[in-house]
């Protein structure tokens, strides 16, 4: 039972961390290498809020604002000029990640910080006692995916965004401001990133490099799931479960590499399978 809950909550965490990256990749076809640093920003936003004695709600609000600001600045100054050079855009976001992390180091030092979870203790679920905050991640992830689904499928913004994803030139020629859509998507992606950073910070420690650990896993998840949030959810469930299995039964170090290795092999084999079908 605990094992099942571990699988579910791990998948929920992965989904939270990955959704921002997915948002940006889906619309702009760019892997945002600064995503790790953006998670870090969220973590430190939560840290600043709790260290000053404010509640977690303030931390999340601060994370949201910081994400919005970071996303807006990065999109304008770095991503937009490199729109025609996708590989360079990736590199530039990577360089930006270095800059953000160094700024965090200069502001807060290299040290590891801990944040109290807003929900303490454990809850009894179906006969076992389990960390309440981890469980809290389940409705949060479900809510996020529902919101994203509604946003993309039931709103005008969503329709326009999907139009840009499918055929940007056509969308632009139909009068959709694709630059604005890309700008908003990038900001949304960054906000999702900082919120995820703030949300996961009580479960792990906060340090300037906290995002890097999540980076490869979330890259690989995005690559495997393509452009759809539904398939991202499924991939998170399957690979998250695999990670828990390997970590708890084989070796935690190998567990940390599970997603990356599994995803790389899946992509290698599946693409071959397509060409054969």
């Amino acid at each position: 039972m605990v094992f099942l809950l571990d699988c579910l909550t791990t998948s929920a965490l992965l989904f939270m961390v990955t959704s921002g990256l997915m948002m940006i990749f889906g619309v702009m076809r760019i892997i945002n290498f600064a995503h790790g640093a953006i998670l870090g920003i969220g973590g430190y936003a939560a840290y600043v809020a709790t260290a000053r004695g404010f509640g977690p709600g303030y931390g999340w609000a601060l994370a949201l604002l910081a994400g919005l600001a970071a996303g807006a600045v990065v999109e304008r100054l770095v991503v937009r000029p490199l729109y025609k050079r996708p590989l360079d855009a990736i590199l530039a976001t990577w360089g930006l990640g270095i800059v953000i992390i160094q700024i965090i180091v200069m502001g807060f030092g290299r040290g590891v910080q801990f944040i109290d979870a807003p929900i303490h203790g454990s809850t009894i679920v179906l006969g076992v006692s389990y960390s309440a905050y981890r469980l809290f991640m389940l409705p949060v992830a479900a809510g996020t995916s529902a919101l994203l689904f509604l946003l993309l499928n039931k709103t005008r913004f969503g329709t326009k965004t999907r139009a840009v994803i499918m055929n940007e030139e056509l969308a632009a020629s139909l009068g959709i401001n694709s630059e604005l859509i890309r700008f908003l998507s990038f900001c949304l992606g960054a906000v999702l990133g900082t919120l995820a950073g703030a949300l996961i910070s009580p479960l792990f420690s906060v340090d300037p490099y906290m995002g890097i650990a999540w980076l490869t896993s979330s890259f690989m998840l995005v690559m495997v799931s393509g452009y759809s949030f539904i398939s991202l959810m499924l991939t998170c469930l399957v690979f998250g479960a695999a990670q828990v299995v390997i970590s708890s039964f084989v070796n935690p170090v190998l567990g940390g590499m599970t997603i990356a290795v599994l995803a790389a092999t899946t992509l290698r084999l599946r693409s071959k399978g397509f060409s054969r079908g």
Partner: protein
Amino acid sequence: MASLAQEKRAPGAPSFLSGLKPGRASLIALAGLALVGAGPFVTDAYLTNTLIKAFFFGIAAITVDILWGYAGYLTFGQSVFFGIGAYSAGLVFTYQGFSGMSIALALGAAVGAAAILGFLAGWLSFYRGAAPFFASIISLVLPIAMSQLALSGGSFTGSSSGLTGFESFDFSMEEWFWIAGYSLMACGLLGWKLVNSDAGRILTSMRDNSNRCAYLGINTSAINTALLAACAIAASLAGFGYGSFSCVVAPELLGFSLGTEFIVWVALSGRGTLWGPLVGTVLFNVTSSYLSGSMPFMWQLLLGFSFVLVIILLPGGLIPLLARPFAVNKKSVPELVEARPGEKALPEKGWPHAIEMNRVYKKYGSLSVLRDITFHAESGELVGIIGPNGAGKTTLMRCLSDGGERTDGLVKIYGNDIERFPPEQCVRFGLGRKFQNANIFDSLTVAECLRLARSIKERPSFLEKKRTLALPPYVLDVLRLTDLDKKLPVPARDLSHGEQQALELAMVLALEPLVILLDEPTAGLTKAERTRIGKVLVSLARDHGLCCLLVEHDLDFVKEIATRVIVLHQGCIIMQDTVDRVVDSELVRSIYAGTDFYAGPGRKGLREGAA
């Protein structure tokens, strides 16, 4: 990496040394020799120490530049190979002691492990249809996985503190300086020879347009993998030197911050120039060793900022800017000569069909784009394929030239079943495919494009640039007819649309194909150009026995040159007959006029009458 076609070599990077006279190049080499020779006597111990390490890093940076700047593979993982070399030295010297035997063992481990891992990474990263940055993401997985392994190795790998104080080579500082310095120079020279050789052009061509490479019979996956393995070995040997010199081996050497530092150095100092990263890495390391002591975080921040700025504003890097005033932009032009005809005889009677398609289907889900395509074509025939938009003409071409395309059915080229072979294998069966839009290598010159197209006939040299370019007579004819022979040193992207089409045709013909597929070869050409191309095609079929398959919208053009016409409509062959009969038929008229003849009662009769 076809989508990277627009990501050419960073604009403004002048081909500095490539235009140098041999005298000047050897002068630079001599100056380098003298500098390294005198180095240890003019620098203090601290600087000597820093420089030795920087030299080893420089070798790794050169491999990154070859992989990224030339072949277009952005790798964050070159540190893994560097680290493997260092750990080979550390582990073997710690546990086996230091002896002649253990040196050989350590070197063998460094080379072997790097080669195996390089091949593995290549297999994972380079396959047909892989997204360009997918390989980069795999390269990110490697260092994370490897440093985790080193960290979890317990006392065997020394975990996070690594291995220290093992016995190593008993060289003086001066000797280490010379070893490292001359190794760097040797690697630089070797790399320089490689990227400027004829074979080196293949690297650029794969970056420009890997699809065209495949259709020239070049196995890009294999070349990328082999290149990665070779660069892995070079980086590993550099790491071996670093480990043996410093006698400190730590997980950071495997980690991805070192891997990204390589990228930063190469990007800042000028990717795709080779000498830029060579000089730049040494400079950055020396600066960093002084500045990171006094202002560690500031220095990192500064590096990060300048990295972002250089990527956005100056993709060519900083160091080429300094050298720009001295650049000599002169490309050597090879002399065109006629190739000796290969031993391959002209197809004779009794040979199998040039093209044979049997019950070929192509489906996307429930949608059939091609249905039950069965036909054959012979040597010397010029078969026109006509049909309205969406009839499946280009899909038919694709199914003929790439074994992975069709859903069902049999395709044979001169009796060779193409099975599920990739395009490069189909090309080796004698197939040449000219695409609808000119599909060429933007940043290569006309001469280089043609040389590449010859690479399966005449293996290009790894070390030199040939002074002659041998081409079959009909290719020379195409070049002369279109005046391309006067434009050999012009980069392909600067040609006019018609010239680009002609260049692609010449490239495909340079393969000496037996069967040639042409997708609208006259689209966008002037009347005069069209007539010239028509003459060339007729002569190819009649005089050289090629089988030409021609997709065309222009019925007049087809009428002039084709010997037979196949009419495709909604994925089916509805008629194959002589030109006149097809052009005069009611059926073809009704299709082109848009009447839905399927609705009519005469469908069955028409089909039988046509076949």
